[in-house]
């Protein structure tokens, strides 16, 4: 098979001609928004005075809570978040008012004229404090299987611990942005950098008090999102909609990097207390864990994120007796939100910390402990899902072989004996990641395809292109079904008028859901074209019963040598014979359910498996390290596009490595984020990646894979990054066996662990 072309929009990107929101020419009469942000994290509003700002030359409007025509509410699942607070400030940098002016500098100047009187309240910033005070969005959640209490009685070893993993700034290169354009007198067209067109539309319609069909949300593409434009984009989208609705002028919001980093939520920090029991060999018998997350000021997606952390508290390990409890805690930080992995990495971090401890206490090889506990087919996860097609042992074995695990271990031992300041270490990170939205109804999507009479094809799905190359994958699927070259296909923006009610492009399900919807639409079109093609081929002397083949833009009968017709000829004839050349495809992932009361169900359609091994070298004086190598084995079904998946694995690994080794979200004791630009918040740069990065994608034949046997790749590989954390911990423990490494493993954390 010919090598598939890379990025469907690659040529646009490399030539600088791809348009992101804000790149299009300014519209005449457009207003630019700037915000008056809260200077404190928690306060009662006594007065908000914007009379001077309102009359500032060039200012067209200053909007706040009183100006909302509909419901001042953007909370979605749990309705607790106002667009603008009316009486109570809940986090630092919460937008309290929006100034709309003829240019940004005027808006900025007018923001400076707004006066706020408030009575400051003590902020709650830490998980422990919020938890002690019972500041939860909903009561504790629980998943339980077996007899945990009883099982601990029979354990040879019982270990306890507590683990903390920190926040992470999304740092999508394109900041939050939206342009709202009033059309006619009854429609607002929102070009919005969101992963969720439906949510922006729905929330805007409530806030404005107008029906959803009067709001059109469109996303041409995003300059990265990583979960940070799922819920967190809604507030800006709705602000712009409100501005355009009230002023009847186009409104543009582009957050500066500083505003974006201060005002938007991050990955959830998690704290957990745990107790694990195993037999003399290290086989785990019982696992009791409580997970608490720092959700920030409003519920946002915190409960779903907590739930996914709970679903991943077992990672690849079969634990017959488990009790997993979780509480999502409200604090006075910007509402923490979705971030690639969505709680999964945080849950996995805990069990992996526990596994490391078992290996250390029992004096066993951590790889061995992982292998003897790995899920086998037929095992049951704590929430009742039966494990089929387990790739846990297979990927662990393969990555150990690729990394030459045993030899590397002895090399490291030798190196550490011979070197006093430099110390090496190795870390292992296996992954089992459940694919599907755990809120079952979100697992649906649709696609709309038009074949035009010149044979070119336009495809729309509800999915949002944000660099994951969803559009390339959708085009591959459609090209395959219709038997036409990839280049004939254009994948359009995501637009609520073409594909409405779209679930967020999230949870790694983008290509599964949208790819399948596109497949179904394309299959309908092919079914429409087949009889026409058969008739035309029969007219050319072929048997009317022969099977019709669509391939490479040509149409012919199976078994005949020469292609007889072009795809376009068939399309033209179909149009003349009044056969539909447009089709809608709808897909819902089958067989998913979860009962939250019982903590039981089948929340995932399938799992993705993989494993990583990292080797590092640490300078124990400076705390600096280098990653000598990382080996990754990633199982992904029958890939739609190997190189795209490779890119996803690489990028996610580096992002995960950044999370646990260098990215530290720091807030002061007033709840103000101190790291608000790329010089104070370090994301991995090109020199931080491993000197040797070896990634092997393994094809698997899973009965439960998705479109054409492929599997999701977006989130799971982020978790491999934690192999670097455990490798650093291993290096530290070669000096000080009981050392506990703080998260993230910055040079300061490494040095302090050694002291």
């Amino acid at each position, binding site marked *: 098979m010919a090598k598939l072309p*890379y*990025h469907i*929009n*690659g*040529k*646009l*990107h*490399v*030539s*600088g*001609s*791809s*348009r*992101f929101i804000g*790149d299009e*020419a*300014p519209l005449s009469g457009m207003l630019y928004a700037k915000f008056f942000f809260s200077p404190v994290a928690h306060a009662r509003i006594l007065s908000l005075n914007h009379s001077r700002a309102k009359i500032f030359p060039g200012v067209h409007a200053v909007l706040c809570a009183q100006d909302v025509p509909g419901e001042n509410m953007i909370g979605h699942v749990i309705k607790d978040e106002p667009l603008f607070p009316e009486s109570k400030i809940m986090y630092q940098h919460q937008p309290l008012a929006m100034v709309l002016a003829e240019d940004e500098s005027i808006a900025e100047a007018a923001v400076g004229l707004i006066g706020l009187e408030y009575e400051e309240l003590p902020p709650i910033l830490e998980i422990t404090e919020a938890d002690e005070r019972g500041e939860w969005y909903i009561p504790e959640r629980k998943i339980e299987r077996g007899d945990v209490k009883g099982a601990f009685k029979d354990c040879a070893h019982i270990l306890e611990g507590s683990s903390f993993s920190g926040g992470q700034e*999304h*740092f*999508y*290169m*394109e*900041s939050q942005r939206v342009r709202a354009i009033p059309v006619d007198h009854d429609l607002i067209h929102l070009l919005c950098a969101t992963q969720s067109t439906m949510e922006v539309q729905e929330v805007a319609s409530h806030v404005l008090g107008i029906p959803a069909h009067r709001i059109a949300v469109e996303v041409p*593409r*995003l*300059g*990265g999102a*990583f979960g940070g434009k799922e819920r967190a984009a809604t507030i800006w989208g709705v602000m712009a909609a409100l501005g355009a609705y009230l002023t009847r002028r186009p409104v543009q919001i582009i957050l*500066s*990097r500083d505003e974006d980093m201060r005002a938007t939520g991050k990955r959830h920090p998690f704290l957990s207390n745990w107790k694990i029991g195993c037999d003399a060999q290290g086989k785990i018998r019982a696992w009791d864990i409580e997970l608490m997350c720092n959700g920030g000021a409003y519920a946002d997606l915190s409960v779903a994120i907590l739930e996914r952390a709970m679903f991943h508290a077992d990672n690849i390990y079969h634990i017959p007796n488990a009790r997993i409890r979780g509480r999502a805690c409200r604090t006075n930080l910007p509402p923490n939100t979705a971030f690639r992995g969505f709680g999964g990495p945080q849950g996995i971090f805990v069990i992996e910390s526990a596994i490391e401890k078992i290996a250390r206490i029992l004096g066993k090889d951590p790889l061995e402990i992982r292998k003897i506990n790995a899920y086998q087919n037929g095992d049951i996860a704590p929430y009742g899902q039966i494990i089929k097609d387990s790739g846990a042992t297979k990927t662990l074995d393969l990555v150990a072989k690729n990394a030459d695990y045993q030899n590397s271990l002895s090399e490291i031992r030798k190196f550490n004996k011979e070197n006093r300041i430099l110390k090496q270490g190795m870390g292992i990170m296996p992954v089992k990641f459940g694919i599907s939205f755990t809120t079952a109804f979100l697992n649906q999507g649709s696609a709309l395809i038009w074949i035009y009479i010149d044979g070119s094809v336009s495809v729309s799905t509800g999915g949002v292109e*944000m*660099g*994951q*190359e969803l559009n390339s994958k959708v085009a591959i699927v459609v090209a395959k079904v219709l038997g036409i070259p990839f280049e004939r296909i254009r994948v359009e923006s995501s637009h609520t008028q073409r594909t409405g009610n779209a679930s967020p492009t999230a949870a790694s399900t983008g290509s599964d859901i949208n790819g399948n919807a596109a497949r179904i639409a394309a299959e309908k079109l092919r079914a429409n074209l087949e009889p026409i093609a058969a008739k035309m081929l029969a007219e050319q002397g072929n048997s009317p019963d022969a099977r019709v083949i669509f391939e490479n833009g040509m149409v012919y009968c199976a078994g005949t040598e020469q292609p007889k017709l072009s795809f376009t000829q068939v399309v033209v004839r179909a149009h003349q014979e009044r056969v539909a050349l447009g089709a809608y495809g709808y897909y819902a992932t089958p067989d998913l359910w979860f009962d939250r009361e019982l903590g039981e169900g089948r929340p995932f359609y399938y799992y993705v498996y993989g494993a990583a091994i990292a080797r590092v070298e640490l300078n124990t004086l400076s705390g600096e390290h280098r990653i000598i190598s990382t080996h990754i084995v990633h199982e992904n079904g029958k890939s739609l596009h190997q*190189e*795209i998946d*490779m*890119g996803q694995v*690489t*990028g*996610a*690994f*580096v*992002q995960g490595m950044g999370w646990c080794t260098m990215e530290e979200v720091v807030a002061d004791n007033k709840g103000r984020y101190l790291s608000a*630009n*790329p*010089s104070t918040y370090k*994301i*991995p*740069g*090109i*020199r931080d*990646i491993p000197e040797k*990065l070896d990634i092997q994608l393994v094809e698997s034949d899973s009965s439960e894979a998705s479109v054409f046997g492929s599997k999701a790749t977006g989130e799971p590989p982020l978790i491999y990054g934690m192999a670097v954390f455990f490798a650093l911990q291993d290096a530290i423990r070669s000096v000080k066996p009981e050392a506990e490494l703080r998260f993230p493993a910055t040079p300061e954390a490494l040095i302090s662990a050694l002291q």
Partner: protein
Amino acid sequence: MITVNGIHYEIPEELHAKKLSDWLREDLMLTGTKVGCDIGVCGSCTVLINDEAKRSCKLKLNDVDNSNITTIEGICAPDGGLHPLQQAFMDAGAIQCGFCTPGMVLSALALLLKNHRPTRGEIRLALKGNLCRCTGYQQIIDAVELAAGIMYPNK
């Protein structure tokens, strides 16, 4: 006078203090120059100034008087065909969301103009000021190596 992609522009007084990145994007509509941080750290606004990679968000028009500026739009062939380095970015899979891509390509081009056979280490060094949140950089390094071989085959 400033030359951008071969076209000369006289700069009126009132624009002297304007940021180069804003001028390129707003006045010339060359929106391939992206602004990721606006404080000179992320590299997404990189352009070539007399063949050196520079961050356009850190410069005022005053600073670049009499310079020859190349933006991402300016390295394509007149017929719109891609420069070998651009093609290599596509072929090596070095693009995901594409937001960092123009800056990345131009930083890499500045390197290749000086060093026709950079090692992977030299590529890392030259691109250290360009952040990418999507790709994990591996394929970007591959792309630059690939392009070097195509641009300067007889090395």
